[in-house]
């Protein structure tokens, strides 16, 4: 083996700078890097433009790291640059979005994560089981093509048309809150709310509280955060889909380090989610929400 003391891994995400969910990922790779004694770097397209992300992957490959950890937010856009990296001898692990098949297709070692559409679909099936027939999807990043897949999956899981039940709320909490209120006032027959992350979930919790329907309306959300955990505890939110971003970041660093050092590799893809977090067993979640959860 060549020198395996100073290994460098680069993580490339598709999230814009300020997206709070990815913070957990950053923390995860940082911890992984520290524990394994390797250098880890985090890069992302500042505006969340996937085409810019492709350039960053090319850039990462040019700097010849030992491995690249990246999402497969859009197969068309990212497959080329990822394949080029793989063919140069750089190990790649796909995390978060994309599917196991796509990961294999681009030549990645493995896939760690939760395909967005599938997660949405699973949530939809679950909600259908709970008797939900209609929903509103609160999308705070309408232009983000990855996140919207969750709503589409959810609708398909419920077996209904997405139609105009996905609302574009923008990122301002007051606007999100008031738009949700407006929508629910105008469509009182809505059974369920699906939020796509803490940014939209937090104001939505306030919205349902203010409308006095907290606990009455079926409320599910993706990803975790302080307020979401509190909401689950208080019974406002039925479940949060935790795809455990920490694992998506931490595990690849560990796997790549061990692969480079000792040549060992798990035989299968790892599904970090969807894990449904409900009111049971919330303690740890509560403590680390937003940081490692």
């Amino acid at each position, binding site marked *: 083996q060549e020198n395996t003391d100073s290994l460098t891994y680069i993580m490339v995400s598709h999230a814009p700078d300020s997206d709070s969910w990815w913070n957990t990922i950053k923390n995860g790779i940082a911890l992984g890097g520290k524990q394994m004694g390797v250098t880890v770097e985090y890069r992302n397209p500042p505006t969340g433009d996937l085409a810019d992300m492709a350039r960053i992957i090319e850039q990462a490959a040019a700097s010849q790291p030992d491995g690249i950890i990246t999402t497969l937010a859009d197969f068309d856009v990212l497959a080329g640059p990822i394949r080029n990296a793989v063919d140069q001898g750089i190990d790649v692990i796909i995390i978060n979005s994309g599917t196991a098949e796509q990961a294999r297709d681009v030549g990645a070692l493995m896939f760690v994560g939760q395909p967005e559409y599938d997660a949405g679909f699973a949530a939809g099936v679950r909600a259908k089981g709970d008797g939900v027939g209609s929903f509103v999807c609160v999308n705070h990043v309408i232009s983000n093509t990855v996140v919207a897949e969750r709503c589409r999956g959810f609708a398909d899981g419920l077996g209904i048309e997405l139609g105009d039940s996905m609302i574009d709320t923008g990122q301002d909490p*007051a606007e999100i809150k008031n738009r949700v209120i407006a929508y629910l006032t105008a469509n009182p027959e809505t059974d369920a709310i699906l939020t796509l992350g803490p940014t939209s979930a937090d104001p939505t919790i306030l919205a349902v509280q203010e409308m006095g329907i907290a606990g009455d309306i079926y409320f599910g959300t993706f990803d975790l955060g302080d307020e979401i955990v509190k909401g689950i505890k208080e019974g406002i939110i039925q479940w949060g889909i935790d795809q455990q971003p920490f694992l998506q970041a931490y595990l690849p660093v560990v796997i790549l380090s061990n692969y480079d050092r000792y040549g060992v590799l798990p035989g299968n893809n790892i599904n970090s989610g969807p894990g449904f977090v409900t009111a049971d067993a919330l303690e740890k979640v509560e403590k680390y929400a937003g940081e490692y959860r």
Partner: protein
Amino acid sequence: MTDTSTNDERVKEMSGLRRALIRPELGGIVGTIAVFTFFLLFAFDSGMFSPQGVLNWTTVSAQFMIIAVGACLLMIAGEFDLSVGSMIGFAGMMVAIFGVVLAWPMWLAILVTFAICIAFGALNGYIVVKTGLPSFIVTLATLFILRGFTIFIPQTVESKTIIGGIREAAEGDWLGALFGAKIGGPFFQWLGDNGWIGVFTRGNREGQPVVDGIPMLIVWAVVLVVIGHIVLTRTRFGNWIFAAGGDAQAARYAGVPVDRVKILMFMFTAFCATVFAVCQVMEFGSAGADRGILKEFEAIIAVVIGGALLTGGYGSVIGAALGALIFGVVQQGLFFANVESSLFRVFLGVILLLAVILNTYIRRLITGER
């Protein structure tokens, strides 16, 4: 001299009504009427005009108003500020860092945040005034710099980009209440008890009125609009604002302290952004690195819909407030009216265009611009 009367055969007559109507706010007034007529016709039974619905779009409009007042005065003074949105995110984050992470008393956290943000506003103004660079560029740089810090600081100190627990930290704080409380609670309870407004019939707030008070946010908006309007139209300083924006060189020649006026307006804009941010963190209890994105454009749009001239020297605070109202009502109304939400942007663009065309026409009537 024969023509000492103000009657002039070279001027066609203009009716008194027409003369009374032609004022900077006219575009805003017409727009407001149009917008309300539209929604009264098409979304009347959607709950938009129930007490709760009214509070809903009033709150959103009040938010816009707070930043629009600052943007309006600054725009009249001939500059504008693209860093408003970043400033909102930054201010909220500072409150959270001081108040939650460092656990300072909330009033201190808020005061220090105001001081820092106003200092940033002054810096913006100072750079613009001293270098003569367009404020577009200078504040674009500030936009990036502040947003960068807003992401970097919490990540470094807390390894999170959302910091919560502000509501708890502000519990019982007098200054916090000035931004986060609701007023008139007993009055609304009384209204509810008498059945004049709806009460919750189920859930955790059964028996309480659906509207339980007016948020301080709205109070702030009204106060800022009133003060802004009076300062602009009725004081010496207001005249300086117009002068600084109309032609800085000419104003300087006439003895107006243009630099001071501009810097003060940048500081006032920062003040408004901070008010916005503090109200927001008090209401939502958390500060996030993504707060306030694109708010600078929304402020500018409200101001322009309200009839101000982008190049300075002309405009009205009342107009800007009406612009904010129109913007808020349209935005919320489209949700009440169940319009496909991705078309919201299309509507916004179209309304913006129509509003500025109307305003330009009105302004030409008033100023006889060539």
